[in-house]
C-alpha cells in the first residue's frame, strides 16, 4: 500500500516562553497536497478571542477568503484579514483549552494560484465559542515552500501549542 499520508519534518511543540510565529520551511515539492494540523492558543488578554493567520513563502499579500463562522455570538462573521484561518482561544477563555485547526492546501507545488481551506473549532466552557470553515485563495503561481502561522493580534502562541505538517500523495 502506498504511503500517501506522511508527516513532513517534526511536530512543533511550543515551549514555556511561547512563540510569535510557527513556520515550516524547505517544504519538498514531492507531494500532491499539504495538510497542517494545529492545536493552538494565544496569550492575548485584551479580547475574548484571537485569530490564526497564515502566510506562504513569507508573503502576506494576494490573499482572499470567505469564511463561514458559527457560534453563540450575535456577529456571524467578522474577519480582519484575508489570511484568516479561524478564531482561536486566548487568555480570556477556559484555561488550558486549545483551538483545533486543520489547514488543507491542494496542489501546493503547482504553477497555478493556490486554494486552501480550513476547519477550525475554538472551544470554550461558556456560551462564547466559534467554529469556522474558510475557503481561501493565494493568487500566486509559486510553489509553496514555506508556511508560517501567526496570531491576528500579533500575540504569542502559548506553551503546549502544537503544529504538524503532512504531505498527501496521490495514489
Amino acid at each position, binding site marked *: 500500500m502506498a504511503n500517501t499520508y506522511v508527516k513532513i519534518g517534526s511536530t*512543533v511543540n511550543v515551549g514555556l516562553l511561547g*512563540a*510569535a*510565529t*510557527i*513556520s515550516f*520551511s524547505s517544504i519538498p515539492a514531492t507531494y500532491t497536497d499539504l495538510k497542517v494540523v494545529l492545536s493552538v492558543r494565544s496569550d492575548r488578554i485584551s479580547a475574548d478571542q484571537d485569530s490564526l493567520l497564515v502566510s506562504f513563502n513569507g508573503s502576506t499579500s494576494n490573499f482572499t477568503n470567505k469564511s463561514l463562522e458559527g457560534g453563540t455570538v450575535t456577529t456571524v462573521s*467578522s474577519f480582519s484579514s484575508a489570511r484568516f484561518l479561524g478564531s482561536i482561544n486566548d487568555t480570556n477563555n477556559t484555561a488550558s483549552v486549545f483551538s483545533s485547526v486543520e489547514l488543507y492546501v491542494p496542489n501546493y507545488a503547482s504553477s497555478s494560484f493556490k486554494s486552501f481551506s480550513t476547519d477550525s473549532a475554538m472551544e470554550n466552557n461558556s456560551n462564547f465559542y466559534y467554529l469556522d470553515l474558510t475557503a481561501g485563495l493565494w493568487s500566486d503561481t509559486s510553489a509553496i515552500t514555506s508556511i508560517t502561522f501567526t496570531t491576528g493580534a*500579533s*500575540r504569542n502562541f502559548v506553551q503546549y501549542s502544537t503544529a504538524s505538517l503532512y504531505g498527501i500523495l496521490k495514489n
Partner: protein
Amino acid sequence: MADTKIIVNCETGEVSEVELTAEEVAQREADAVAYAKAKADEEQAAAEKAEAKAAIAERLGLTDAELALLLA
C-alpha cells in the same frame, strides 16, 4: 525576553527557535495596530447595521421577536 519564532526545516527535520529581527518586531507591532483598527471598524460597522435594522423594525412596528422570525 525577546519574542521568538519556531522554524521546522522540512529537509533536515531540524527545529530551531530564534529571536525575531528588529524588522520582524516592527512589522509585528504594525500588524497589531492594523488588526485592532480593522476589528474596531468591523465592530462599528456591525453596530451601525444593527442600529439601522432596529430603526426599520421600529418604523414597521415590529418587535425584536417578530423581526427575528421574519429574518429566520
